[in-house]
Every structure is written in C-alpha cells, then in structure tokens.
C-alpha cells in the first residue's frame, strides 16, 4: 500500500479506526470525524469502496449484524492480516497526523 496517495491514507485511517474495535461503515466515518475533532470529514462516497477494497485484500472482514437499536448493518472488523499490516506500517495515530493533514489538503 503506497502511503502517499489520498486513497492509501483513507485506508490507513479505516484500519486504525477498526483497530479499536469492530464497527460499521457509518461508525467508521463518525469515528474518523470525532478523532480528528471534526477537522476531517470523510468523503462518504469513497469510504465504502475503500472498505470493500480492504475486505477483498483480506485486511478486514465483514458480517451482517443487528445494531443496539435494532438496525441491520454490515459490521467490519480487523483480521490478523490487517493487524499485521498496521504493525508493519508501524505508525501511531499521532505520527499519522502528518498524513491526515495531507489528506485535509486534498479533501
């Protein structure tokens, strides 16, 4: 995964978000916005293709589940391969801020 493309940055953000626990697409979008204290607004149109790319690559897996308020949602979780990939990149959320700023610049 080349990390100098906005697409790669988005995928990195997704993986980092899912590291904290399984979540559905909307949850991921929300989590990214909150973590960046509202600075970062995820382009929802590209969020879902990115999720599916990661799923196809085997870094995350998905399952239809029922949420707390009884809604059916496709919930994503990090796979072992995904965890390994994150470690390989070896960058904490803090050091990612540079990348995030870059994403902002494009967004």
């Amino acid at each position: 995964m080349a990390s100098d493309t906005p697409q790669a940055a988005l995928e990195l953000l997704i993986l980092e978000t899912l590291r904290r626990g399984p979540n559905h697409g909307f949850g991921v979008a929300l989590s990214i916005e909150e973590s960046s204290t509202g600075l970062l607004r995820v382009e929802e149109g590209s969020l879902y293709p990115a999720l599916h790319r990661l799923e196809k690559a085997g870094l995350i897996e998905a399952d239809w589940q029922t949420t707390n308020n009884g809604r059916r949602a496709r919930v994503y979780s990090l796979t072992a391969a995904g965890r390994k990939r994150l470690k390989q990149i070896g960058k904490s959320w803090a050091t990612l801020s540079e990348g995030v700023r870059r994403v902002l610049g494009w967004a």
Partner: protein
Amino acid sequence: MGLNDHHEELESHVAMRAEHDGTDTNAARRRLGNMLRTEEDMRRVWVSPIWDVLAQDARFAWRSFRRSPGFALTAVGVLAMGLGASTALFSVLDRILFRSLPYADAGRLVSVGLLAPLDSNEFLLTTDYAQLWRETPAPFESVTTFFRGAAPCDVMDDQPERLSCLSIEANFLRVLGVSVAAGRDFTPADDVPGAPLVALIRHSLWARRFGLDPNAIGRALNLDGKQVRIVGVLRPDFELPNLGGSEVLLPSQIPPIPRGAHVQSSGFLGGIARLKPGVTPQQAYAALQPLFRQMLENVPAAFRREVTLRLRTLRDRQMGDARRQAWLLLGAVVVLLLIACVNVTNLLATRLATREREFAVRTALGASKARLARLALTESTLLALVSGALGLALAAAMLRIFVAMAPGGIPKIQQASLDLRVLTVALVASLAVGCMTGLWPAFAMLRSETLHSRGLAAMARPWARLALVTAQIALTVAMLGSSSLLLRSLWKLAAEPLGFDSTHVLVARVSLNAAKYRSEQQAAFFEDLLARASQIQGVAAAALSDSLPPRGATALVIFANIEAEGRPSPPEGTGGMVPWRLVTPRFFDVMRIPIVRGRAFEEADRKGPPAIILSESLARRLFPGDNPIGKHIQPQRGQSAWHVVVGIARDVRDEGPTAGPKPTFYVVRPRSPAIGRMSMILTLRSDAPAGWLRQEIAAIDPHQPVEIETLQQRVAAESNPRRFTAWLVALFAGFALLLAVAGLSGTASYLVAQRRREIGVRMALGATPTAVAQQVLREAATWTAAGACGGIVLAGASAKLIRSQFFGVTASDPASWSAAMGVLALALGVAVLRPAIRAARTDPAVTLRTE
C-alpha cells in the same frame, strides 16, 4: 457478494446518518453523493480483471480434470501424440520448406548454369566463366562461383589429417552476404593466379584443430605439400550453398582466358548469382538468353541440342526432389493431427453430455451461457497446452528416431532441432488445437437452454458422434492406404534385381595424397593393397575399380564418340552419356555380374593389348545383330587406343532400381597404368571383418585414411529418401489407426451404456446375448464401412499427389488395399469387441430394476 448487499449497506448507512444528524434521509443521501456510482465502485472492487477470470476458469477446469483423470489422460495422450509428431516433423521439414537460407536476403540468390545430360545439377564451364561472365550479366547484382566437387586434401604437418577442400571465388562470402567470425575475408588480390596461397577455415576445424586459438589466424598450414596461410575463420553457423562439409576454402584463382582461345579441358563451376532487387528468376532467365547462345559456342557441336540454360533459386537447387516428399509428409502429419482433434472433440462431447446436470446447476446459480461456453474453450485449451508440453518431450524422442531412420533421407536433417522457432510453432499449434476441439462443445453451450440443456443432448445424439467416428475412420483409411502403397513400393524396390549381388561385399574407398604418392607410386600402392587383400583369410575374391554401381561412375564418354569397328556411321546427336569403369580382373567375381558371352578379364589382359567388356545393352547398340566378341572399339574416337572386346556382361541397374539399365563398358586396369589414380575402390567378396582390412592398409601406410562400408549399405542408401517417407507415413498411419480404435471403442461403449435399458428390455423379451452382440457389431460395421468408403475416395485423391513416390504399384494396387483393409477390419473388430461383449452380458433383471 450480491448487488443487493451493496445497496442495503448504503441504505443502512443513510438511515444511521439521518438518525445521527437528525435530518431526513434525503439530506443523508445527498451527503453520500451519487449513490448509484458508489454502488458501482463497490461492485467494481469485486470484479476481477480478465486474467483473474481466466486463471479462475483454468483452476476450475483443472479441478474438473482431476475428478475424471481417465478422460483427461486419454485426451492428453491423444493430443500429445498428434502434436508431438507434428512438432518433430515440422522441425525436420522447416529447413526444406520454410526457413530462409542462412544468407542475407536469401530469396534473391539463384543458382545458374548449363544443364546437360551428364549431370542433374547446372554448371558453368571455367572457359565460359572466364570469357563471358567477368562482367556481371545485367539481371544480377553480383555473381560468384565455386568449383564443383570438393577435393580431398591432406594436412601434412605434425598432426596429419584428411580434410575436404573447396575452391571458391574471392567474392563468395560477400555475394552470399555473410561475414567471417575472425580474421579477414578473401580479397580480389588472393584470387589472382600465382598469389600467395591463403585459406578460410570452418569454425569446426578451428575448434577441433586449434582449440579456437586466435593465433591460428595467420599461421601456415601444410596442405598437400603447399604452405597455405589461414586468413580467416567462418562463423559456426556458416553453411556452404552445396551443403557440403568442406572445412577449408581456398581461392579458385581462375586464370583469365582470352576470347577465342582454344582450351583443352575446362573445369566445372557452380554458379551463384544475386538478382537485382525486383528482378524475378523468370525475367533473369529471359535476359540471359543472348549470353546462353554465346556459351553454346564453347559446347561441342554434338552436344548443343541437349544443353539448356537453367536458373533456379538456391533453395530449389539444395532441396531438389526433397520438397515434394516434404509436402507429402507434412500432409500426412496434418491429417494425423486432424484425426487426433476429431478424437478429442468426440471425448469432450461425451463428457459434456454426462455433465449435463452440473451445467444445469451452474446455470441456475447464475452462470451465463457465455461463461459456460468460455469454460468449455478453457478446458480444451488447457488440455491442448498440457498436451503440447508433453508433445515436446515426445517430439524430442521422435526427432531422434527420424534421424536414425534414414540419415541421408532428407537434406539438413542432422541440423533439425527444437529451437525457439519450432517451439513457437508448437505453441501456436497447441492453441489452435485447443480452439478447434473446444469449438463444438462451446457452441453447444451457447445454444443450450437453461435447465434442459438440449444443445448438450444434441451432442450426445448418436448421429453426431457417429459422424465424427466415421470421419476419423475415413481419414485413417486414407492414411493406411497411402502408407501400404508406399511400403509396397519400397519392398518392390528392394526386391528389384540390380544386376549384381550386393550381399557379402565389403567396400573400401582409398584416396591417396597426390603430394605424397607420385603416379607410379600410386599404382604400386594399389597393387600391394590388392595383393594383401586377396590373401586375407575368408576373402573369396578381391578387385579394384574406380567406381561402383549404383551411380558413382566418374568416367563418362559421349555415345556418339565411341568408334566401333564396322559400325556404319555415328548416330544423330550425342546418343547420351556412357559411363565406364576401370576394373581389375576379379571385379565381375566380386560383384557377381554374369558374363553372358565371351570371357571375363584375365591377368594376362593387364599386360597385353587393351581389353574391353561391354554391357549387353551397349553391345546391342554398337553391334546390332552382330557378335561383338573380337571386334575393336575406340572409346574416344581418334583419341584413345583401340580395345578388343573380350566379353559381354549382364546389364547393371546403374542408376538405381527406378531407372532402366544404362549402357556401360569396363576397361581392364593395366598393371602399370600410364596415369595413376589417386582414388580407387577396393571390393572384397568376403565375410571378413572390416578390421582386418584396416590392418592391411595400415601395414602399407599407417597414415592412410580409408572409408569402409558394405555394398548393401551403399545400395540401401540409394533409397533412403523413399524409405524415410514410407516409414514415416506408415508410422503416422499406425498412430491414426490407434486413434481410430480408441475413438470407435469409446463411442461404442458409450452407446451401449446409454441403451442399456433398451437392451435389457429386448433381452427380457427373449433376445439372445449373441443377437445383442451381433447388433452392436453390425452397427459398428456400418459406420466403419461408411468411413472406409469415404477413405478410399480420399486416398484416391491423395494417391494422385504422391504417385511420384510409387514404384511397381498403381494407386489401385489390390494387394496394398487388401492389406490396408485387413488391418483396419482387424483393429476395429478388436475395438468393438469389448462393448459388444458388455452388451451381451447385460442382465435384464438388474437393468430394469435400476430404471
């Protein structure tokens, strides 16, 4: 991953967003952008590019083959046989038919010269060349020559060695458009008579004698007692235009001959010319006519009418008759490959029919017809590629067999190899075979209806499969018929009496070195050799001669020039060439050529007045209705001594069994000939091992090289090309028969299995097992007969094409055809026996219960 899933996931997102933001769903939707596009993007993530799909198909096909290994192995075996044979044969024939000669722009190179009855190749006389060809004729860019007939030459340095030397004009390599690997090419200065002697050597000699030492260039070589400096080395892949093996090339140094000067004898040159761009051989031929008329003036008057001008491409000169044989063989192997394809299509069709349910399920699960058709093609292509790979291994083995079958059978066969070019053709052939065999199944898939795959059922329908089997049998019959005609021709040839007995005769060719042996020493050497050889234990007779039948005669006279005592007047024209041989008295004993009148030569003839023995046909022509014994003959009118006729010998098929006898005469070799011969042939009627003969020769001169073979080997080599063709076609016909047996057996078994119920019912109603078996056999006989009829028609057409290869048989030769049909009937009988027995053993109770 269905499309609905993507939509539902996005809808769920929209609902959650609306709830979270406290807005209506439309606003949430807008935030997501173009929902349809997003869905499309999600879908595209999952759709693989084309190669992934192909790999997936291939994996699927591979798995399905592993489920039915019997089918896969049979199909691969059949195709590998066809592709292997085709590949091996292509590698052999490519150099004859397609591959361009290893010269620059080889299509423009032609061989040009006079064609006269004394030789089958065109030649230029040195006189003509020196007088008329020094200025390049208009249609040519350049012309070069080489001396016809390479001469043996001896290296007389510390490591003596017999080599073959060829004299070429200095511009030889430049006209061919090739360059030297090391050193330099000849220059015009090298070609001036009297210039210091220089030589170009072949790469093989450089490697063998000098270990590729660069310092060898510039070194002098003692060739036949003359110091010759090596100036250059030819490239490893250099090929002489006459395909000869000469390893040393020398400048021919043809002296200038002024116009009108009378020249006693003239050398024979091979002429090679490069056509100017855009000039066709036909145009060049027409443009050379004035020059040809000038050349005719140098030809003896008696000869003129029989001399023509010939200009043909260099490839034609090299390959001669081999091209026709090459096409014949190529045709045979293509038919074999076709049979293999038909066979595998049949197998695939059977398999598809049995997989009807699988395909119905796959269709129900959403596989499109196109996808299934593609799968059928993928399967057949995969089969063909695996077979192609296996076929290459087979081809490598077959190539060795081909080369061993007839070493001199086909030009350039020794160079045949599975190189990149052949591999490419093999790959293309495999892909083509894959498409061809898969086409019908794929087409059936496209036509099939979703659940009731009628298209597939149609493939299983007997008539379609029977049509395939019948076509296969027809092709097989054509091949069997052609091959038995060719084989019978071969046998007739071998049985044809040659006029001499080739069994138990050992032949040793000894060529002396002119620098080492002077004229009288040569005579002494051969007398010594003859005396020693006659004393070897087990030698019944020994003789020397300058040449041996078949062919090989090196001495020829013009019939019209023979002066016979009492013959009224010489006939019109030349009367053709009469070959003659110089022999010692026991020659007729060694060769077992009967003397029909008079006597054979005696020792006394070697010292007394010159004696001559005529062949029957020559005696008839020279002395019609007269007794020639005791008459006198001058073999060269006015130039040679008068010889007395002492005997008449039975005719010998000197030009091989395919030609009639050739008038010949024999002259006894005097004990001390005026002119020594450097090269003589020693023949022994004996079963003594060749080693003993070698010892005797070594006892006279340990450095003297000698080539020993049996006369039978020599005679057999005469029909090598025919033998090669006939056995190969027979081999292919054998393969074809094997495939026909497999095809018929498979189809019959399948049909019996399909009709088990019908057979059960009939047996329950009282049909005997014999009657059931008979019915199966009868049906098989019907398709076979239909195929055989088609095959005979095909064979009739192909016999026209291969007639030139026949000898002593006609295209409708009854013996050949009955043999072919007998083999076919026997093989196919065996093929249907098992299915017939299985049908007869059907247990009506079991069959009816399972239904």
